[in-house]
Each structure stands twice: as C-alpha cells, then as structure tokens.
C-alpha cells in the first residue's frame, strides 16, 4: 500500500510521509513509526493495514508516541507521589498530606503572615529522613528579599530534630532505637542558599537551576522568597515583564516535572482597584496567576492565621488555621 493512496486528509501529511521515506508499509518498522512527527500519521497507517502491523503490535504499543503515558500509569504515579509536610496537621489535611512534589505551588499573603516561615519550614522538613516518613532530600532556597535569617533556621531545625526524636521514641522497637543523626547545623548545610539582588540575577539563576540540580540530584524542593520583589520595580514595558514571567513559570514547571521536586513560590499582595473599590490580589498581575498549578493564600482572621486553597487541580477549596511559633509552623492553639 503506497502512502499516496492512503486516505490521509491533506496533501501535506502525504508529503511528510514520503519525505520520511515510507514508500510502503512494510518498510516502516515500529520504531520508525514511533518517530513520526504526528501521532495522527501513525494512527492512519494502523487503521488501514492492521493485519500487517499486528505482528509487531506488542512492541509498537510501547513506542506509540515518545513521552506519552497512559492515564493508568499516571494515576499510579500520583498515588505514590510524595508530599512534604508543613508540620501543621490541619494544613497538611487540606493539602492532602502536604506540598506535592512535581508541581509548582504559589503561596501569597500580607507581610508578617508567615510566608518566609512556611518556606523555611518546608526547606527543613524536606530533609526529614525516610525512616521518619520524610523525603530525605535537600533544599534550594532562593532569597530575593533578605528575609532568610540563619538563627531562625537553626531554631526551626532544632525543633524538627526534637520532634523526630520524640517520634522515634513513640515508634519504639520498629525503628530499632535509631538515633537522630542530624543536628540543626546539618539541616542548615543541606539548604543551598542563593541571594539574588536584581531581576536579571533571578532569571539567570533560574536558567542555571537545571544544570545545578542535575549535579545535585538529592534536591527535592526549590523555594523562591519572594518571586515578586525584584519584578515590582519599574519595567518600561509591562508586556515584556509578562513574557519574562511566563517563560520563568514554564521553566520552573519543567524543572518540577523533570526532577520530581516541589517548587514553592512565595508572593506578595497588592491592592487592585475593582469598580472604584479596593481589593487584595497577589502581585505580578493576572497572567502570572495562571502560571502556577496550586495556590495557597495566607490571611488573618481576627487574631488567627489561616491558609486557604485558592487554586488546585485536585484538592477542594478549604481553609485551615495554623500558627507561627518559636518551633516553626504548627497547629493553631485555639480550640475552635
């Protein structure tokens, strides 16, 4: 069966098949077909001459389209996907266990609500060893504002080691009385800290992250605190800013998928004028708000801090109270 007699919809597709030298179906091996530019080309060939292909079908199904997965595999993968705990049970509950790896999560709120605290807590919690239920990974912390205070990180890390010892004692024999080998200083060592002072540095660093993470495969979270600060200066062309930010968001998403790590972006709030009344909105504009997979808004409700899931492909919208203590992010102390 010659390609030009196939009922392919347009002449262009026919030409393409010919250009790839498929003069007859017999000459097209499964691997060749798998490398075809468009799946539609391959489907047509299958429909027309099924009996010839069936003998090669088993091999063919795997090579169908490079990079594709069937939904069943994706589901199994998602269920085994690890999450990073936030150390607050209520918050973990609404997040389905914690911040998910392989996804970009944006966290926004007013100054003083605890964004940096949450970022540091996640950078510490990602290091919890697997025998305590953690990921045993390392963290990258990109600081654009200068809010990363070493004494606070050591304080949170110390509380984490105390909690782990407590947990180990609770589990008793099953952990074989394993001593917690990590001290607060070790936690600090495992956070790769980058200080960025301009938006060009920020963009350059994000482009460099791919190379860096390929060399440091144990990194499991990237925290950017905050993603907005350097971009809120005067940009002559706001459209350019949007383009730059979209490219950045895309890169971060690819990074998250490629290395199976969590990307957490901390964002600021700004006031937006809607119909001559003021409302709070996250910084960087409307198009940026489409770039992140998940969004968590932190806000005050009277004297309490709350987190609200504003956007998520799989979790339902819910609020949970949390508190910032000397030990880090913890459950809210009130009973209500």
């Amino acid at each position: 069966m010659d390609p030009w007699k196939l009922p392919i919809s347009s002449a262009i597709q026919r030409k393409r098949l010919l250009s790839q030298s498929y003069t007859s179906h017999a000459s097209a091996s499964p691997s060749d077909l798998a490398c075809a530019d468009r799946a539609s080309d391959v489907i047509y060939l299958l429909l027309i001459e099924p009996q010839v292909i069936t003998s090669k079908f088993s091999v063919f199904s795997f090579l169908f389209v490079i990079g594709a997965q069937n939904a069943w595999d994706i589901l199994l993968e998602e269920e085994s996907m690890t999450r990073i705990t936030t150390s607050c049970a209520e918050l973990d509950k609404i997040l389905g266990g914690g911040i998910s790896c392989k996804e970009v999560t944006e966290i926004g709120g007013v100054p003083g609500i605890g964004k940096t605290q949450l970022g540091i807590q996640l950078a510490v919690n990602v290091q919890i060893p697997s025998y305590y239920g953690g990921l045993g990974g390392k963290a990258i912390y990109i600081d654009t504002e200068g809010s990363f205070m070493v004494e606070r990180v050591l304080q949170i890390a110390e509380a984490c080691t105390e909690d782990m010892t407590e947990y180990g004692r609770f589990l008793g024999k099953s952990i074989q009385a394993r001593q917690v080998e990590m001290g607060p200083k070790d936690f600090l060592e495992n956070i790769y800290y980058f200080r960025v002072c301009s938006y060009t540095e920020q963009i350059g660093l994000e482009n460099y992250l791919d190379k860096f993470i390929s060399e440091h495969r144990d990194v499991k979270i990237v925290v950017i605190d905050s993603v907005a600060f350097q971009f809120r200066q005067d940009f002559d062309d706001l459209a350019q800013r949007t383009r730059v930010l979209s490219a950045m968001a895309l890169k971060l998403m690819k990074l998250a998928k490629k290395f199976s790590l969590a990307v957490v972006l901390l964002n600021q709030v700004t006031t937006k004028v809607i119909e001559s009344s003021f409302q709070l909105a996250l910084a960087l504009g409307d198009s940026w708000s489409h770039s992140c997979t998940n969004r968590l808004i932190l806000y005050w409700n009277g004297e309490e801090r709350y987190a609200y899931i504003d956007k998520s492909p799989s979790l339902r919208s819910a609020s949970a109270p949390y508190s910032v203590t000397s030990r880090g992010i913890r459950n809210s102390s009130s009973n209500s």
Partner: protein
Amino acid sequence: MAPENLLRRPQPAEKLTLGCPVMDRCLAGGIPCESITEIVAESGSGKTQLCLQLALLAQLPPSLGGLSASSIYLHSEFPFPTRRLHQLAAQFHAHHLQDLIATGRDQRYDPMDGILVQSIHTADQLLDIMPQTESFLQNSQTQFPVRLIVIDSIAALFRSDFDNTSIDLMKRSSLFFKISGKLKSLASRFRLAVVVTNQVVDYVGDGMNGLKIGNLEELYSSGRRVCPALGLAWSNCVNSRLFLSREEDEKANNCSVERSEEDGGFGSRTTRRWLHLVFAPHLAPSSCEFVIRREGISGVDR
C-alpha cells in the same frame, strides 16, 4: 555575576545594639545587618532620638554590641537635630571613652566624626545618590567602614510629589521597590544595617488603611488609631517593622513622675512610651516600654 557565584554560605546576621539590655532582649540582640528595619511612629515619639543613638552605638566594638563602624545619616526632615546630637555624643564619649580607645581611636576622637550626614529632598534624589553611596562604600579605605545607613524619614520624601491618582500611586510604588531593592543590594554586599523611619497617618475607615499587617491588629498612639504611611506597597519592601507609641496618662503616678519634654512639667501628666515589634522574620511578637532621657533612650523593666 555568574549564577554559580550567587550560592552563599549563610552566616548569622550581626546585630547592632539599641543601647539597653531590655530593648535588646525585645529584639533578640538588636537591629540585624543585611536587612531593612523600619521604625514607624507619630512625630515626637522618639524615632530621630533612636536613630541618632544607633548612629553613635555603631561605633562601639562588636563585644559591646556595636559594629566598630561609621554611619551615613540621610535626613529629609529639617532642621537636622544638631544640638541633640551634640548632647548625645558628649554623653556617649564620656561613657564609652575607654571602649572607643580600645578599638583604636584617638583620645581626642569626636563621635560626631563617625556620622556622615546628607540632606535629601525628594525620592529621585535618594535614587540618584545610590551609585555615589555604592562607590563610596566600595572605595572607602578607612579603618572604620560604614556599616549603618539611616534614612530619616522615608515618608517625607513621598509626601509632596505624588497625587492620589492611581497612576501616581503606581509610579510611587515602583519607586518604593527600586529604592528598597537598591538598599537591600547594598546591605547584602557590604553587610550594612539599614534603618528607615516612617510616619503615621490617621485611620479613616475606608480603603486598605485598616488592613492587618503583622502582629498588631490595630496601632494606637496618643489615644487614636493610626496606620503606617506609604501603604501596603512599602510594607512589602521592609524586612522588619517596629512601632513606637506613646500615651498620655492623666493620673498621678507616685512611683515615677516623668516630666514630659513639651509641657515643662505642669500638673502630673506622664507620657508612657512603648516599642512594639510589628513583624520580623526572626522574632516572636514582643513589646517593651522605654523612656527618653538626657543620655538617650533606654528600656524600662516594669
């Protein structure tokens, strides 16, 4: 700057003491370096006093909580309090002479020599002197490099030039981020402490004025509710915020009747002053009471 060079080994930030152990306890050591600390207060609350005091304390050696450094004092409110600085410097010199000599300074050293004062009138002027400041910091060969920059006050720079239209507010916001970005970059590069003072505006009950930012639901001073000037945008530009408040107490107080500076001591009115921590990335919420005396500001343990 190559991306690989941005990787740092984070060090604990050095702290600049406020001159009194009570207030230092409130701030876990003092004003941190490599970040911007904002002091918000209504006029007459002690902002400038505190800033002058910090500029002097920076000259102390690190063992006493100083930075062994000089300071740059940018002032936008006139006149500059030269007489008060003279008074504080004389007290400081008398009190700390031995410590200053230990750092290598001369017997006849005048603490006022360690404070470089510059007046600024507009926000654009502030931006314009940044490159100058940067090259000064880079090329300075002195034994006592600048480690503290004080801007007193940032609000005065923005009060007159901008209208209340949304375009002007946006222009103003982008100036905030430009200035703050430049200051933070200098602070990070040269390990400086940056202290900025801000004024307050009355709370009027509309717009975003009453938004809760930080630990305090409402800020009260002199019996009325206030909000920091310059709005939400500026709040995003600073790392830490301190609020100084004052209240007039009408009733007579037997333990300590402090003559308030304004009225010369009529009746038995007392002015009580507090320092509140509104937000900081490394501190739990705290407050402490303080008094302003001839020697300067010091905390009170009540």
